[in-house]
């Protein structure tokens, strides 16, 4: 993307976790200079590509993903009301992902980070919360028609909850309609095989990579 020096500075400060500097430029562009809000959000996505790359390369870790999410939320809250109705058509999404923590488990930190990373990578994500009963997954899937279903769980009891949930997808005749990925602190290949999921991921970037590969988007 071609960028002027100010735009380059915004991307650099966002990617380098320099929050004060990044927000100052974003506010100036949006509130004083009348910059196109869609352009500013596009710059944010460019910066997030750099953040994701640094995460994959082992330079960045969870704290950087969390701060990046905060910076994007702040800029988004300023930019979105400035978008004119006729410009506001939703950009083409890569695919739809439904995500939730399986029944019996209340943990959500990992799920929330996966949701954020999928969102900024161009997926439409519906997060249906924690301790989600099997029947709720089924109802939500019927209504939302996702390409990928993400099951999250931190406790060892989640192994059986995931297995039951995926078995219920089979019983409802919908298992082949979407891919299933699982993730959480204790998840490994043994658990993937036990639950019947298509794949597991150990972090949010892996989840993005799985969804991209399944929806045909270049990883």
């Amino acid at each position, binding site marked *: 993307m071609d960028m002027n020096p100010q735009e380059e500075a915004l991307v650099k400060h966002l990617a380098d976790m320099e929050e004060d500097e990044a927000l100052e430029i974003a506010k100036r562009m949006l509130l004083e200079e009348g910059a196109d809000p869609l352009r500013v959000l596009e710059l944010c996505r460019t910066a997030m590509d750099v953040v994701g790359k640094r995460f994959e390369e082992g330079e960045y870790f*969870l704290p950087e993903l969390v701060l990046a999410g905060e910076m994007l939320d702040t800029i988004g809250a300023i930019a979105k009301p400035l978008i004119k109705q006729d410009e506001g058509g939703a950009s083409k999404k890569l695919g739809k992902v439904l995500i939730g923590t399986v029944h019996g488990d209340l943990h959500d930190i990992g799920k929330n980070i996966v949701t954020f990373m999928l969102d900024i990578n161009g997926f439409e994500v519906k997060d249906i919360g924690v301790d989600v009963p099997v029947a709720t997954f089924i109802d939500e899937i019927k209504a939302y028609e996702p390409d990928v279903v993400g099951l999250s769980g931190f406790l060892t009891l989640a*192994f059986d909850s995931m297995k039951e949930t995926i078995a219920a997808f089979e019983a409802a005749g919908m298992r082949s309609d979407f891919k299933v990925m699982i993730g959480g602190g204790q998840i490994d290949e043994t658990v993937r095989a036990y639950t019947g999921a298509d794949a597991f991921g150990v972090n949010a970037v892996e989840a993005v990579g799985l969804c991209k590969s399944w929806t045909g988007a270049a990883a």
Partner: protein
Amino acid sequence: MTIHDLARGDAKVAYDARRQRLLDCIALKQPDRMPVALYGTFWLAKYGGITCKELMYDYEKTAAVAARAVEEFEPDAIAPFVQVTAAGKSLEAIGFKQLQWPGHGVGDNQPFQYLDREYMKADEYDDFLFDPTGYYLRTYLPRVASAFEGFEDLPIFPGLHYFRLVAGIRPFAKPSVRAALEKVIAAAEEVDRFVGHAVAFNEDMARKGWPLINGAIAVSPYDFIADYFRGATGMMKDLFRHKDKLLALLDKASDFLTRQTIATAKLSGQEIVMIPIHWAPDAFMSGKQFETFWWPPFRKMMMGMIDAGLVPMPLWEADCTKRLEIIRDIPAGKCIYWFERTDMVKAFEVLGDVVALRGNLSPSLMTTGKPEEVDAAVKHLVDNVWAKGGKLILDGAFGLADETPVENVRAMFDAARRYAG
């Protein structure tokens, strides 16, 4: 008389032999066989055929189930089982808000779960740093436990003097403070019963020949602030937004946690202190962040504990492979490092001449695998760690996962005895 002197006759001989295996491992000497620990929380409910709620609420039933498990598997060291499970009545009495437990937010057959929230606001660092006790009394305690609601009205103590001191205690006459004090006293009476049952279990087991694997349980300074004050995402943002104040609070917490841990451990009569570690894993922060924020205050705390004659036993959760070279910087023969998902062979290669090791049969294997797979996993650890001189205390990755079938526990103990004495 200490808890180590309670057993008599054959039980005393057995107790001393088992305890000596732990002490030998810690001192990096060769024990007569590989010790195996029996540690679990809600696994006991599955084992005993009782609900998670009964495990948390029925002191006698929990002690009986735990004693039965100990007698069945004959471990070398055991969890303080009642202490780590039967807190239900105490949690209820204190109105504890940071957990959901059976009957309080989760079903009767589900384990308790911690609620990750922001219990301290980002702009409260100065208050906490200036007067930790005042911050606890008037701000933190009412937030995390309803029995303390009313403590907000307590006087500010530093500065009270002479006639100002006399007038200054007037808030104790307020209905809000009186009600809170009554609730706290009632809660403390329940906690007293709980601890009485926990101590009675530990002493009963000691009389029968079974030493504990730990007494007190402590926390690292970083995890203390991240888990119980700022919350996961709050803490991660503070690394950038409030770096200097966070470093100051980590240093201060290191000092007061060391003092408190030493006092609690002396009361328990056990030198080994378990320290569950949540925020050290490779994926959670960079090496530079780990060496800046996480490790220095924890190392200082461990050194204080070692100087006081204690044995720190951090349970390094998840995968901490990238931390091994850093956490090696501790005096040899003074600690047990318990690893959850770090490859134990790699941990042995880096740390084998510095610390005893504990763990780490994987939860997925233990809950979904077959006994012969458990046997093979134990043999792998024996062949590649124990037989090569590693001072390994065999256990599950964080004790026994709640859903572990009894036959897999049996396989773990049988394999340990078959391959390592």
